[in-house]
């Protein structure tokens, strides 16, 4: 089984896409997951310490 086969065993994609309906908003679960990941990445980028920051001279 190749890599695609392995991934296919984990994620069964052989069905009609799942959708979220919320009023006039309609989006696929896959897109909702990506948007969620983007929000998580955005917030992490604001709060995670940036490597090497301490070594830098203040105001430089």
């Amino acid at each position, binding site marked *: 089984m190749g890599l695609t086969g392995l991934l296919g065993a984990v994620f069964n994609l052989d069905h009609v896409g799942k959708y979220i309906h919320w009023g006039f908003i309609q989006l696929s679960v896959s897109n909702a997951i*990506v948007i969620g*990941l*983007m929000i998580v*990445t*955005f917030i*992490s*980028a*604001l709060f*995670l310490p*940036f490597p*090497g*920051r301490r070594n*830098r001279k*203040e*105001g*430089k």
Partner: protein
Amino acid sequence: MSTEIDRQWTTRLRKTVVEKLPPDKLLPDTQPAYVASWIYVFGVTTLAALAIVILTGCVLAMKGPLWWHLSGTGHFVNSLHLWSVEIFFFAMVIHLWGKYFMAAWRGGRQLTWVTGVVLFLTSVGAGFTGYVSQTNYDSQWISTQAKDGINATGGGAIFNVLNLGQMLMWHIVLLPLAAVALTAVHVIYVRIKGVVPPFEEVK
């Protein structure tokens, strides 16, 4: 007193360029302390993803559709192209959010923001024309759905999504040229103006 040499367009252009963007501003040695944050990484991430998209796109263009549909290597390069696009949009939108919340258009940086907005629209167009240029059932489905939307606006007369030749040309010539040129202008504006200071630093 201006000599004849001073009036030459080459001399004038060089003077303007060097004055607006001296080499140490174009490629600086240091950055202000506030730039040491992950939120500033997403512009370069977008840039790197764009480079891979263009590079893999060139390989796909050299080999053609039969190769990317039928061979293993072709599938692989096709996937690199697609997934770099995914990273490109992912990073670009986080970049956009960051710049929006820090109001990075402050201090005469409005053209950086505006070129960004046009880049976003150009990229959506490039993504769309890419999807309809795949030459598979997916692209047939997408283009037959999209034609109704575009025809409803009247735009179908000049932009026919069922015309594969036209869509492919937009995807591999016009929109990449526009995206690369705009990106260059965008990044050069950032270098001319320097990175925008956070609100606290301005007060």
